[in-house]
């Protein structure tokens, strides 16, 4: 029972296009998994299935010991009872931040605590301020998202996700909308979380970063896992992995 994520034989198609083909992997508690791969390989779709923004077609998924769906007669059958429970255990940080523009920074971080977890105002605000402080944003609490830089907005969105005490946090290209300097800001934050043993799965194109923080890594292409293990960064076994990694070398 040390697995945070146990995903087996996941498949997903959009219409006729198979986007995920029979993917399996596990994430141990406290582990950081990085997911790399070319555009259209199904990385986002996979995260979106685990965070319940998309439905699986077939396969089995357990999150922290609870089953979200299992395969029955070649179809993913969801366990309705667990959907919400698992949803509360998983957090997702988007590439485009998706902060709520009409809420202040503080309210972005307190709203779900109050409305979803039913925490009191004082408790939610204490929690939010502690997280904002951790993100180096305590002086921005009263501002609105449009007044912040992209890096600051992304840090708010990380605080917003952490405020609900997720068991595992997913990142979908959290730095792709940011310039190199702001990217470093965010990578620094994620690295800090890794040091605290936060369980995370990160889709990223930052190879050096991924190599540095990952306990495990998967390389996806065409909806399948081509190669798994952190050795794929330094010593890729598969030709496709080698080519992909090499394309980042001259950056």
């Amino acid at each position, binding site marked *: 029972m040390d697995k945070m994520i146990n995903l087996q034989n996941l498949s997903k198609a959009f219409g006729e296009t198979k986007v995920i083909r029979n993917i399996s992997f596990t994430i141990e508690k406290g582990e950081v998994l990085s997911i790399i791969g070319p555009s259209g390989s199904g990385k986002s779709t996979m995260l979106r299935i685990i965070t319940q923004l998309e439905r699986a077609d077939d396969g089995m998924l357990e999150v922290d010991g609870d089953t979200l769906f299992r395969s029955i007669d070649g179809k993913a059958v969801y366990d309705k009872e667990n959907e919400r429970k698992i949803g509360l255990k*998983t957090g997702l940080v988007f590439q485009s931040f*998706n902060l709520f523009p009409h809420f202040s920074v503080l309210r972005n971080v307190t709203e779900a605590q109050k409305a979803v977890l039913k925490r009191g105002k004082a408790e939610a605000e204490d929690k939010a301020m502690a997280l904002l402080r951790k993100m180096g944003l305590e002086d921005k609490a009263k501002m609105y998202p449009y007044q912040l830089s992209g890096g600051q907005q992304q840090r708010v969105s990380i605080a*917003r*996700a952490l405020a609900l005490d997720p068991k595992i946090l997913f990142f979908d290209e959290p730095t792709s909308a940011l310039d190199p300097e702001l990217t470093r800001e965010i990578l620094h934050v994620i690295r800090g979380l890794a040091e605290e043993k936060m369980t995370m799965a990160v889709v990223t194109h930052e190879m050096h970063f991924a190599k540095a923080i990952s306990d495990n890594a998967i390389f996806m292409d065409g909806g399948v896992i081509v190669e798994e293990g952190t050795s794929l960064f330094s010593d890729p076994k598969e030709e496709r992995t080698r080519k992909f990694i090499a394309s980042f070398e001259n950056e």
Partner: protein
Amino acid sequence: MASLIMQMLEGTVTSLRIFFLTLLFSLPLGFVVAKGKMTTIRPIRWITDLYIQIMRGTPLILQLIFFYFAPFYIFGASYDRFTACIVAFVVNYSAYFAEIYRSGLQSIDRGQHEAAKVLGFTKPYTFFHIVLPQVIKKIMPALGNEVITLVKDTALAQTIGVAELFRVAQTASSRQFSTIPIFIAGLFYFVMNYIVSRLFAVAEKKLDYYR
């Protein structure tokens, strides 16, 4: 003179009643229509679409006449002019408001819904606390235009004999061989719309704290 002022006041009250009753019913009904136009259930979407096309594609005058006379020809029963007038205005304006709401709803980034879902907000909570406030801000300018048009459109109610301000003014003008009553009516529409546009300006300013 005193009776003229009394008549014009009564006409003004009638115009204002048309205005407020239309808003009272069509602002919320427009939401229902917008939902109908956005549903995945095809027959409902088609019917809603046809309804909006007809309301936008034909003159309001014609719709007023239709709603006043149709019940008589169909059921052999007639109802009072004022009610017919309100029905026509509400049915017409709901269609216009629906299109405004729809464009507002569609302008909200999908990421807002997804972030709300991942954070565990329920659908109603997401609608009322995340989506709706942003929609209201987005549609304010279009809504303002439509409400200003409504103020002027109330004058069309005279087509089916409702004694609203403009009809009273016209009658008074021809009786007294003077255009002054019509100018007084014009002043009313101007002042009314001045107030409406000020109110919308204030609302837009209030919502200006974020982008």
